[in-house]
């Protein structure tokens, strides 16, 4: 049966690996945002050739499982690229997470850019504003407000995605659980602890997300 004392004992052991989860999430968020912004801007301005390429890229990233992407990158591409072969698992996971989530984020960002109506752009032009002034002063402030809630949701998804890191040997929460499991075979308590830790993190961020959503909606 569920042993509370063991659960309480294993919980801090597993939770001690939470720093790996946060490191991965923060790194992946930054680079995914970069990837997302670049792809979104290419799509927004319909840059020839590049916009077609990014569309295929986004479709592949969204249409295939992350695990497959991770294995393809870490084991597949490593066969032909020393650069990838020499990567530590942690870096490799961060790269795949960024590339994957960047595709999702690009859609949120592109949608937000498109949400600024043509009329406001015409108004800016009619007053003699330059394209740069229009983008910096009118489009971006409005797009940020639209994009922020879905982007934050993507960050929450990144946290859960970090659990994949363990599949190529990164000693994160899942890795610690595996080690504990090999010692005690008390998988019931161990994975209950794992889920509780993820759930608490996501729950707290979920509250922030709600707040952000409300704040953004009522800003103007």
């Amino acid at each position, binding site marked *: 049966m569920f042993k509370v004392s063991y659960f309480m004992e294993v919980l801090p052991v597993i939770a001690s690996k939470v720093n790996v989860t946060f490191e991965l999430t923060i790194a992946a968020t930054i680079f995914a945002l970069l990837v997302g912004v670049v792809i979104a801007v290419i799509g927004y301005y319909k840059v020839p050739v590049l916009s077609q390429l990014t569309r295929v890229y986004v479709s592949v990233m969204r249409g295939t499982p992350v695990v497959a992407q991770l294995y393809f990158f870490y084991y597949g591409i490593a066969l032909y690229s020393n650069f990838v072969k020499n990567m530590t698992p942690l870096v490799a996971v961060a790269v795949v997470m960024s590339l994957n989530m960047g595709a999702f984020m690009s859609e949120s960002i592109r949608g937000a850019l498109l949400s600024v109506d043509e009329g*406001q752009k015409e*108004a800016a032009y009619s007053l003699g504003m330059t394209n740069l002034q229009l983008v910096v002063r009118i489009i971006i402030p409005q797009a940020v407000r639209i994009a922020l809630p879905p982007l934050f949701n993507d960050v929450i998804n990144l946290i859960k995605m970090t659990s994949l890191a363990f599949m190529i040997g990164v000693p994160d929460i899942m890795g610690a659980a595996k080690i504990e499991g090999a010692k005690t075979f008390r998988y019931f308590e161990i994975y209950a602890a794992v889920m509780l830790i993820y759930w608490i993190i996501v729950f707290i961020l979920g509250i922030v997300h709600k707040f952000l959503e409300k704040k953004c909606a009522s800003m103007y």
Partner: protein
Amino acid sequence: MMEKEKQLVKIEHLYKEFDSDTKVLKDINLTINKNEVIAILGPSGTGKSTLLRCLNYLTEPTSGVISISDVTVDAAHHTKKEILELRKHSSMVFQSYNLFKNKTALENVMEALTQVQKKPKAEAEKIALELLGKVGMLERKDFYPSKLSGGQQQRVGIARALAVNPNVLLFDEPTSALDPELVGEVLNTIKKLAEEGTTMILVTHEVGFAREVATRVLFMDGGQIAADGTPEEIIDHPENPRIRQFLNFVNRK
């Protein structure tokens, strides 16, 4: 020489084709003097708005030359810089207001003052407050557009257009999107400007209003200026059967 000085807007051989089958403007030639209030009337789809939008290159003409004050832009070889200059000589009031949603009424009016004219903030604010007072929106200066009615938004739109101190003010059906009970407040604002001698070009469906404020009326039909005259000539005593037909139709509505 006197005549030349009064001349503010000049349009020469202006054509606009969206493709070879849709010729929206066909050889428009027009001179507008300072202090004139021009109303452009005509059935839908005859190029009224397109003509207005060509004046600030929101719509790029296919060919023709447009001059406002000392800026001349030839569609055949125009630069970005020329268009920017041209736009600084006019400003536009839109059918759907098009206020900047992330800015308050006051910030909307200040935007071009600080960004385009590079005025210091305090001076821009002073001008903006004055103009908001003029359009009766001073009390709501800190409201975002989403918290204003259509008529209020349009009055802010007018203040924003006035802020850049344009040579000519362009109105693109400024009351068409408004509920009937809100049309009056906007028309009154425009009327006030007309009385002050602001040079304006109005594309409108409000024939009665055009009759009242315009000093000159253009009737457009099929991408051309079919009639050009005083409100009395065009609205009260129309000779052109197309105008009579149009006026009858509008009056019956």
